[in-house]
C-alpha cells in the first residue's frame, strides 16, 4: 500500500472503519427517506410535471408558443441545451481525466458528478428534440436506411455532428458510470435484507463476485473506458460550439469557440458539482468523505477554467475590433452597448470577475461562499450562451431584420421543468444508488485517511505488518 506524505491533507476525516464507510454511504438506501428528501422530491416533481406539461403544450400547438421570431430562431432552447451539455462535462472529466492523472480526491466525488453528468445530458438532449418544428420526424437526423429513396442526412451540418457527439458521449458516460456502480451494487446486494431490494440489486450488480480477478478486470475496464471518455470530454463541447463557429453570423463565426466552449463547460460543470455536493454532504452527513479539501480542489479548477474563459472573452473582443470587419465589430459593440448589454454585463461579472475571488484561501474554503459562487457561475454560464446565441443573431447583417427576443411562459416553463426533472432524477439517485463510490473510497482510506496519516510508524506497522509506511 502506498501511503501519502503527511504534508498532504487527508481526504477522509475522522477514523472510520471500512464498515463505517459502507454504513455511512448506504444509510440512505437502507433507511426510510428523510423529511428533507420528501420535501425536495415534492418540489422537484411539481417543477418536472409543469415542465412536461409545457413541453406537451409546445408539441401540441407549435414552436410559436415560444418567444422566437423570424430573426431569432434559437433562444432559450439552444441556450438551455448548451448550458446543460456544459454542466454534463464535469462528471466525465472528474472520473476519466482525473483517473488517468491518478488524482485520489476524485474518489469521493466521481459518482455524484457522473450521475449529474448523465442527467444533465438527458436534459440537454431534450432541447434539440423539442426545438424541432416537427419532432415526430426527429428520427430523420439518424443516418438509417429509409424508404425515402436515396435520402440521407447532410454530413456538412454541425447539427448532425451534434447528434453523433452527444449520443456517443451519453452512451460512453452511461457505461462508464454503470461499470463503476457494479461493485457497489454488489455490496448493497450482500447487505440487503428485504427480498425485493435484494432481487433488484442482484440484478443491477450483474453477479459481481468481488474476488481479486473481478477487481483486477474492473480496474482495467475502468482504465480503458477512461481512455475512451477523455477525448469525448473535449470533443462534445467542441462540436457543440461548431453549431455556431461554422455559421456566417457575426458573433457566431469564431474559430476560438471549441477550446473556449470546453473550458466554459468544465467551469460550469464544476460549479454544478459544487452546488450539489455542498447540499449532499451536509444532508447525507458525508462531511468525512467530501471534505473542505475536495471543495477547495474544485474551486481551484474553477479559477483555472474561469480564467481561460475570461481570456477567451477578451480575445474575442480584441479580435472583433482588430479584424476590421464591420459586422464582427458591431456584433461585439452591440453586446457591450446594445439592448442586451445587461446580459453581457451579467456574463462578464459572473464568469470573469467572480472566480478570482477564489484566489483567497479563506473564501475558497468557505462552504457558504462556495455555494453562492457555484450558483453565480452557473447563472453566468447560462448568460454566456444567451449572449452568444441571442445577441449575435438578433442584430446581424441587415438592420431591417433586427429584432428582440422576449421569452414566453412556455420558454420559462420548459427550463424550470428540466431543472425539475433533473432534480427528480438526482433525488432518486441519492435515495437508491450508492452516492459515493464507497468501495473505491475504501481503497484510499489507509493512504489518505486522517487516522492513518496521524499514526506513528510503529502503530501503522502494528496494524499492517506487511506494509511499510512510505514517508517519502
Amino acid at each position: 500500500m502506498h501511503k501519502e506524505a503527511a504534508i498532504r491533507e487527508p481526504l477522509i476525516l475522522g477514523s472510520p472503519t471500512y464498515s463505517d464507510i459502507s454504513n455511512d454511504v448506504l444509510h440512505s438506501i437502507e433507511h426510510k427517506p428523510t423529511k428533507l428528501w420528501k420535501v425536495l422530491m415534492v418540489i422537484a416533481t411539481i417543477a418536472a410535471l409543469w415542465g412536461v406539461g409545457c413541453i406537451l403544450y409546445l408539441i401540441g400547438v407549435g414552436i410559436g408558443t415560444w418567444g422566437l421570431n423570424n430573426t431569432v430562431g434559437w433562444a432559450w432552447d439552444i441556450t438551455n441545451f448548451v448550458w446543460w451539455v456544459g454542466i454534463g462535462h464535469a462528471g466525465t472529466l472528474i472520473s476519466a481525466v482525473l483517473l488517468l492523472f491518478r488524482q485520489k480526491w476524485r474518489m469521493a466525488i466521481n459518482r455524484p458528478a457522473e450521475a449529474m453528468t448523465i442527467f444533465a445530458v438527458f436534459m440537454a438532449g431534450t432541447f434539440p428534440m423539442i426545438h424541432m418544428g416537427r419532432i415526430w420526424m426527429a428520427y430523420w437526423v439518424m443516418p438509417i436506411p429509409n424508404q425515402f429513396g436515396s435520402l440521407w442526412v447532410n454530413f456538412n451540418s454541425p447539427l448532425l455532428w451534434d447528434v453523433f457527439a452527444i449520443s456517443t458521449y451519453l452512451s460512453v458516460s452511461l457505461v462508464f458510470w454503470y461499470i463503476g456502480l457494479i461493485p457497489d451494487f454488489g455490496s448493497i446486494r450482500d447487505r440487503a435484507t428485504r427480498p425485493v431490494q435484494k432481487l433488484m440489486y442482484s440484478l443491477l450488480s450483474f453477479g459481481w463476485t468481488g474476488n481479486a480477478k473481478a477487481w483486477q478486470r474492473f480496474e482495467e475496464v475502468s482504465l480503458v473506458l477512461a481512455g475512451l471518455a477523455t477525448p469525448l470530454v473535449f470533443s462534445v463541447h467542441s462540436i457543440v460550439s461548431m453549431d455556431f463557429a461554422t455559421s456566417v453570423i457575426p458573433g457566431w463565426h469564431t474559430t476560438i469557440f471549441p477550446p473556449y466552449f470546453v473550458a466554459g463547460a468544465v467551469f460550469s460543470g464544476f460549479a454544478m458539482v459544487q452546488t450539489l455536493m455542498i447540499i449532499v454532504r451536509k444532508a447525507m452527513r458525508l462531511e468525512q468523505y467530501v471534505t473542505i479539501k475536495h471543495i477547495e480542489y474544485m474551486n481551484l479548477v474553477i479559477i483555472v477554467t474561469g480564467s481561460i474563459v475570461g481570456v477567451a472573452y477578451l480575445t474575442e473582443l480584441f479580435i472583433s475590433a482588430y479584424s476590421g470587419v464591420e459586422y464582427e465589430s458591431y456584433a461585439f459593440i452591440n453586446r457591450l452597448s446594445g439592448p442586451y448589454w445587461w446580459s453581457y454585463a451579467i456574463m462578464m461579472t459572473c464568469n470573469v470577475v467572480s472566480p478570482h475571488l477564489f484566489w483567497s484561501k479563506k473564501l475558497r474554503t468557505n462552504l457558504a461562499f462556495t455555494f453562492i459562487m457555484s450558483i453565480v457561475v452557473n447563472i453566468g454560464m447560462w448568460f454566456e450562451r444567451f449572449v452568444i446565441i441571442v445577441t449575435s443573431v438578433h442584430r446581424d447583417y441587415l438592420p431591417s431584420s433586427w429584432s428582440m427576443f422576449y421569452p414566453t411562459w412556455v420558454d420559462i416553463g420548459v427550463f424550470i421543468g428540466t431543472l425539475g426533472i433533473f432534480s427528480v432524477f438526482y433525488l432518486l439517485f441519492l435515495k437508491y444508488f450508492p452516492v459515493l463510490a464507497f468501495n473505491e473510497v475504501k481503497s484510499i482510506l489507509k493512504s489518505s485517511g486522517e487516522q492513518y496519516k496521524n499514526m506513528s510508524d510503529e502503530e501503522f506497522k502494528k496494524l499492517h505488518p506487511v506494509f511499510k509506511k512510505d514517508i517519502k
Partner: protein
Amino acid sequence: MANSKKYWKGLEQLDNQSDFVETSNNEFAEHLPVTEFLEDKENLEDASTTRRDFLKYLGFGVAAASLAACETPVTKAIPYLNKPEEVTPGEANYYASTYYDGSDYAPILVKTREGRPIFISGNKESALTKGAINARVNASVLSLYDGNRLKAPMMGGKETDWDTIDAAVAKDLKTAKNIKVLTSSIISPSAKSAIEQLVGGNTEEAVEGEEVVDNGSAHITYDSISYSGILEANNESFGKEVIPTYSFEKAKTIVSVGADFMGNWLDALQYVNDYAQTRKPDNKWMSKHFQFEASMSLSGTNADVRIPAKPSEYGAIISSLYGKLGGSGGAKTAYDKQIAAAAKELKASKGESIVVCGSNDKNVQVLVNAINEMLGNYGKTIDVKTTSNSKQGVDSRMAELVADMNAGKVDALLIDGVDPVYTMGDSFAKALKKVKTTVSFATKMNDTATACKYVCPSNHGLESWSDAMPVTGSYSLGQPTISPLFDTRQTEESLLKWAGNDLSYHDYIKKYWEENIFPQSGATFFGDFWNKTLHDGVVEVAAAETEEAETIVFSGDASKANSAVKKIKGGTLELELTQNMAVGAGVGADNPWLQEMPDPITKITWDNYATMNPSEMKEKGYNVYFGQEESMNVIAVTANNQKIQVPVVAQPGQARGTISVALGYGKVVGNMETPTGANAYPLVASTKSGVSYYADATIADVELDEAYHIACTQTQQTVMGRDSVVRETTLDVYKKGSKEDYNPAFTLLSGDTDEHGHQIKKELKEFDLWGDQPVKNIGHRWGMSIDMNTCTGCSACVTSCVAENNIAVIGKDEVRRGRIMHWMRIDRYYSSEHQPLGDVGGTHTATKEALDLNGISTYTAMENAADNPSVVHQPMMCQHCNHAGCETVCPVAATTHSNEGLNMMAYNRCIGTRYCANNCAYKVRRFNWFNYIAYHKFTEVNPSQDDLGRMVLNPDVVVRSRGVMEKCSLCVQRIQEGKLDAKKAGSKVEDGNIQTACSIACPTNAITFGDHNDEGSKLAEARNQDRAYRIIEEVGQDGNIYYQTKVRNLKA
C-alpha cells in the same frame, strides 16, 4: 391402378380404432343438441357468458364495427363529364378585364385555374397604366372569396329573393318622384347610360356628373376622397369641370406640394410607370423631383428633395412659387430657399415640368393652374383636352343632396359604390332616415347598407361585365371570370330591370358599344371589334373632334386666387388626413392580405395611427421606438369637434407641428365584430367651400388600462452606415465618376507582393473557399436584378407574392411578434445624421469620423433616423445564394441547391430546426410557428381557414404545414411552367417569358427576372452594369439577386 394408393389420416385410421370410427361417423352429425343445451338450465347459469354479458359484447361489437366503418372523409376529384372547351385541368386561363373600385382604375389580367380566378396582374397592353397595379388591385381577388359578402338580397334586414325585392322596389319607385342615384365616380359609359335609363336624363350631359330633369330625379356623384377643388379650379380656369391628364414621362422637373401622385393622388396608377421612366440615370436626362409635404408619403420617399411643410402652408408655398416664377404678390414662406431652387429648375425646363398640389382648395388649385400655364406645361405635360374621368364628385352637389334629403325632397335614394354613412357620419345617416325608399347595392354589409331599406347586393368585379373610359378616348372592357358565387346581381342589371329594360347587362354593354364606340373605332365589323377588345381588354378610340377643335386657354384669375390663398392660416398643431397604400379610401379595410401588408413607409400592419415627428414626440415624452413589447402612447385627436382615439407613432420627416392619420380604417363590414383601426373620416372638415383633409387639431393623452402595441415589421429604422447593404449616390457622381466612386468592388490584401513589397489587393472571388459550380454557364441560372431607383416601395409585389405563393395571414399579434410570413418584404431605410446622403465612401468616412470622435455612442446615435431623412426602399427576398449558408447547415438536407441556381426547400423533408433561418444572412426564411390553416388563433384572420377563402389558393403551390421552414422559391412553379411551355414549343426559354409574381406586379418594372446564363438577357445586361451590386457580397454567399445602386438627382 392410379387410384389404388390409399392415404391414411393417421395411425388411428390404419388401426381402425373404435373412437376414431365413432368420430368419423359423427363428423357431419345431423342432430344438433340445441334443445339439450338450452334445457340444461344449470349448465347455462354456470356459463361464464351470461345474457347481460352477451348484450354487452353485442353492444361493443356493433359500436366497434360502426366506429371502424367511420373513415376519414374521402375527398374526391371528379373529372369533367363534359370537359369545357377552354378548361384544361392544371392549366391556367388568362382573361383581360378591368378593375375599378371608385378610385383606382386598372386594366387587369385575371389568371383562372379550373374556373377560379386566383391571381390578378396588370394588363401590359394598356397605354394608360402600362400594366401598373397596386396592392389593392391584386389583393382584390381575395375579396371575391370573402365569406362576409352578402349572399342574397335583403329587405328590412331579412334575406329574401330577387323577385320579391324587385316587386317591392318597383312599387316604391313607381310612386317616387325624386329618385336620386348616388354613386362613386362612374367611368363606365354603359353604366352611366343605364343610370340614365332610370333617372331619365340624357347621356350627353352625363359627362358633367349630374343632370337635373323635370321629375327631380338625378344621378349624384360622390367620391369618398374629394377632388372637388381641382374640378372647380379647372372649371374656373378653362371653363371645363375636368381632371386633366398628366404626362410624367415628359417632366424633367416635378414639384409636388402635398400630392402623393405615386401613391393615392388622382390616377396614380397612370403616373407611376411614366414617372419611373424619368428616374433612370442612364437615360439622357433624369427628372428632378421636389416634394413639399407634411407626412412622409410614397412620393416623398422617392423625391430628390423633400421639404417638410405644414398643410396650411401648402397654399403659401404655391403662392411663393408663383411669385418666384414671375407672378405678382408671391407669399413669403420659411422655405423660400428651397422654393427658389425648385423655381430655378422649373424655369430651366419650361414645358417639360409638372407642378401639382394635393390641396382640395379651389383657389390653391387655380394658382397651380396659373403656374403650369406660366411654365407652358398645358398641351405638353398636362392635357385638359384628354381628361380623366376617375374623379367627378363635386362637394357642393353632395351637400345639396343632403339638404334635399333633410328637406324631404328625395323620395328614393339608390346608393352604389360608396358608404356615405361611414365617410360622412351622422349628417348623412340622419338625412337618410328621411328618405322613404333607400336601396343599397353594397356587396358586403356596411354602415350605409345597414341603414337602407333594401339591399340588392351587386356582384364582385370578377363576376361582372363592365366597361370603362377612364380617360377620353381610352376604353377597356371587363368580363366576368367566374359565375356569381352567391345569389347576387350586378347593380346595372338591377337598375335596368327597374327601369323596365329586360336586356342583360352584357347585351346592354354590347349594344351600347355597337351604337356609340364602334362607329368611332374605324373597325369594319362590330363582332371582330368586340372580340378583339374583349381579348385585349383595352382599346384606344380617337375621340370625335367636335368642340375640342378650339384651343383651351387659361382664363383663371390668378391674383384673386393668390390673395385668397395667402389668407389661409394654420394652427399650432395641424392634422393631415392621408390614405395609405394598403387600405386606400377604405377599399382594403377588410382585406386580410392588405391589412397584413406592411405600410411602405412606417412598416406597420393591421392598424391606424397618428404619425408625428420623433423629436417632437420626445419633447412630449411619447415613445418613439417600435418593437414587440414597446408600449405606444395613445392620443385623442380632436378636429372639427370630432374626436378619435389612435396610437401615436414616430415618423421621421413629418413636418413639425403636424400629425397625420390615414383614412379608410375603422370600417365595419359584414359581421365583423371590431373593425381594424379608428375611423378618421369624422375629422374631415366639410364646409361650404368644400371638403378639406387638413384641419387644426388638438391632442390629448389617453390612459389605457393595458399597454397598446403596434405590429411593425421593421423596428430598426436606419441602415447603420452599412454600405454593402444600401448603395446610393448622386447623379453628379454617377455621371462624372467611375464605378469605384459609388460602387467599389470588394478587395482584400492577398499576401502576394508587388515589386515595391506592397501587398496586392485582389477581388473577393479570388479568396473563395468554394469550388466553382459544376454547372456554371450550363443550362439556366435564374436570378433577378432589382433597380432601387425605380422601386417606389408601393408593395404591390408583396401582395402579389402572397397571392401567388399561398402565404398565410397571421394577424396583428403574430406580426407584432416578428413572425410575418411574407416571402418578400421591402426594407425601408431612413438616413441618419451620420449618413450623409449620396456617396458610398462618404458614408463610411463620416461614420468612421463620428466613431473616432464619439466612440461607441455613435452607433447608438446612428440607430435614430435624421429629422428629415432620405429614404431607400429595398425589396428583399431569398437571394438564392450559390454558396448558401442555409444549405450547409440543414441536418437533413431539406434545403438544397438546384442545378439552375435556385435555393430550394423540400417542405416534406424539413424537420424544423430553424438552423437555416439563423444562418441566413438576409433573414428571409419564414418558419411555420403554428398550424396557420387550422389553429384557432388564426380563424379570424387567415382566409385559408374556410372553404370559401381556400378557393383563392394557387393549386401549383403547396400549403405549408406547421413546423416547416419556407421562403421565396423565385416562383419555381412559374419557372417550371415556362420551361414546359418552351419545351412544348420546341424552343429555348425566351427572355421575359417567365415572370415571377413580384416582377409581374411591379408597376415600374423595377424587378427584372431572367437567366444569368443567357448573355443576351435583360438580366445579364443589368447585372453587368456599373450600378449593379450584391448585398453584403463580401460575406461570400454569391447570390443570384443583384441590386442597382440608387442614384438621386442631386449635386454631390
